[in-house]
């Protein structure tokens, strides 16, 4: 058991260190995230009243695009692997942290551009972010592994990820909108997100070695 | 009601298009087989 966590921790720290070391990758991803926010702000320029209702959707679509860029890099450096489950979790968690960092960077920008202020319970936004990000990242890491064995693998990842993620995206956007507008309760959506995460984390763990061992 | 006829027509256009696609693949396959047999 400790061997597994050692492999996991080693892989995770290696990933984090490598990412932080290659400043180019970080800088370009942050810049890409900034671009996405700005372009969305040009495309939709609402008054403060409307902005709360649509900001949820805009924010998460922007996060989704930024996440895909990060996810595509997941398996770029991977060669051999033994303890696959631990490796998968380590990769997924590494992606999770990375995307959370991107979100933390993009959120203030959105708040500024859209003059956002949460009318509902703001602390719930943290729960929604965590659950929503994990939902994207767990399937994203899995499909990134599947895309390795395809032609056009960069387009294959979002192509596989987006349809399956629709319930999670809907739930995340609705929950965020609920919290921002304070019009209705986010509770059902949070529960749905949790259910989605449980189902797909399990599925990914169970099927990961099948996918990777396919030869 | 032209919408009604449009819907029914669309249904069959979709099905027939798919069948046409299959037919085209079949013909191409058959030509390939003839080529293989000649070799």
């Amino acid at each position, binding site marked *: 058991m400790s061997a597994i966590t050692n492999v996991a921790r080693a892989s995770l720290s290696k990933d984090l260190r490598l990412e932080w070391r290659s400043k180019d990758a970080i800088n370009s991803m942050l810049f890409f995230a900034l671009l996405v926010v700005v372009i969305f702000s040009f495309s939709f320029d609402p008054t403060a009243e409307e902005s709360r209702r649509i900001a949820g959707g805009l924010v998460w679509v922007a996060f989704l695009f930024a996440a895909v860029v990060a996810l595509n890099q997941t398996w770029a450096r991977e060669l051999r692997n033994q303890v696959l489950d631990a490796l998968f979790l380590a990769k997924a968690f590494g992606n999770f942290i990375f995307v959370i960092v991107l979100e933390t960077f993009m959120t203030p920008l959105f708040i500024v551009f859209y003059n956002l202020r949460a009318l509902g319970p703001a602390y719930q936004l943290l729960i929604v972010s965590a659950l929503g990000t994990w939902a994207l990242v767990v*399937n994203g890491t899995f499909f990134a592994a*599947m895309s390795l*064995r*395809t*032609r*056009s693998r960069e387009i*294959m990842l979002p*192509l*596989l990820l*987006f*349809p*399956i993620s*629709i*319930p*999670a995206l*809907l*739930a995340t956007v*609705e929950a965020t909108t609920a919290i921002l507008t304070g019009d*209705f309760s986010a509770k*059902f*959506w949070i529960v*749905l997100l949790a*259910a*989605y995460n449980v*189902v*797909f984390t399990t*599925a990914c763990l169970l*099927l990961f070695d*099948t*996918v990777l061992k*396919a*030869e | *009601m032209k*919408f*009604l006829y*449009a*819907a*029914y027509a*669309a*249904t069959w256009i*979709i*099905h027939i298009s*798919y*069948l046409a696609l*299959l037919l085209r*693949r*079949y013909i191409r*396959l058959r030509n*390939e*087989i003839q080529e*293989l047999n000649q*070799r």
Partner: protein
Amino acid sequence: MIRRTFPILGVLTAVLLSYGLYEALIGAPTEQSMGDVQRIFYYHAPSAWTAFLLFGINFVASVVYLIRRSMKADIIALVSAEVGVVFCTVVLVTGPIWARPVWGIWWTWDIRLTSTLVLWLIYVSYLILRRFSSSGQTPLMAAVLAIFGALDVPLVYFSIRFFRTQHPQPVIGGEGSIDPKMLQVALINWAGFLCFACLVCWSRYRLELLQREVEETEALEALLDSRKAQ
């Protein structure tokens, strides 16, 4: 026996679909609120039922493939997905054509229509994966994706259903109980489309078998040619 079944099934299909078409356009009673446009239902609903059935078959075939790695299961998965997408496309096209005159809008987040759209997206991505993956692993990757898709279906359904309770939307199919005569006409058309789907799936199955044989032969030939060259 196989040689004879195909034409018999063909005749049965033609009979059922013709009768179904007559009943749909003329025999069935006209609906009160929507008028004749409602008759789209007799093609829209059976297509949806057929598509869902085919996707269900795909799920079963994918699971069987994961357990037994049988080529037959893989081909059945491929065929049911393809034909399922065709029927699903019919649902997605007839739905808006129905919605437009009734509600004045082309699209609405009607639960059945939206669930069908998501299902269509998932299975189109499935077919694209099959086309783009390197041939050795295709059956396995596809089977895994099919399982993910199947797991997604209930989540899609519940998320859209709750979305609709919060943002009320028009319902395309009409709600409540259905007139027994209308149900009968729908079922007749369904029977016709099921037979039609059988014919198409069967043909597609044979086509795929033929294709794989040809590919194998060509691969073998290439191997022999390279040996000869040495």
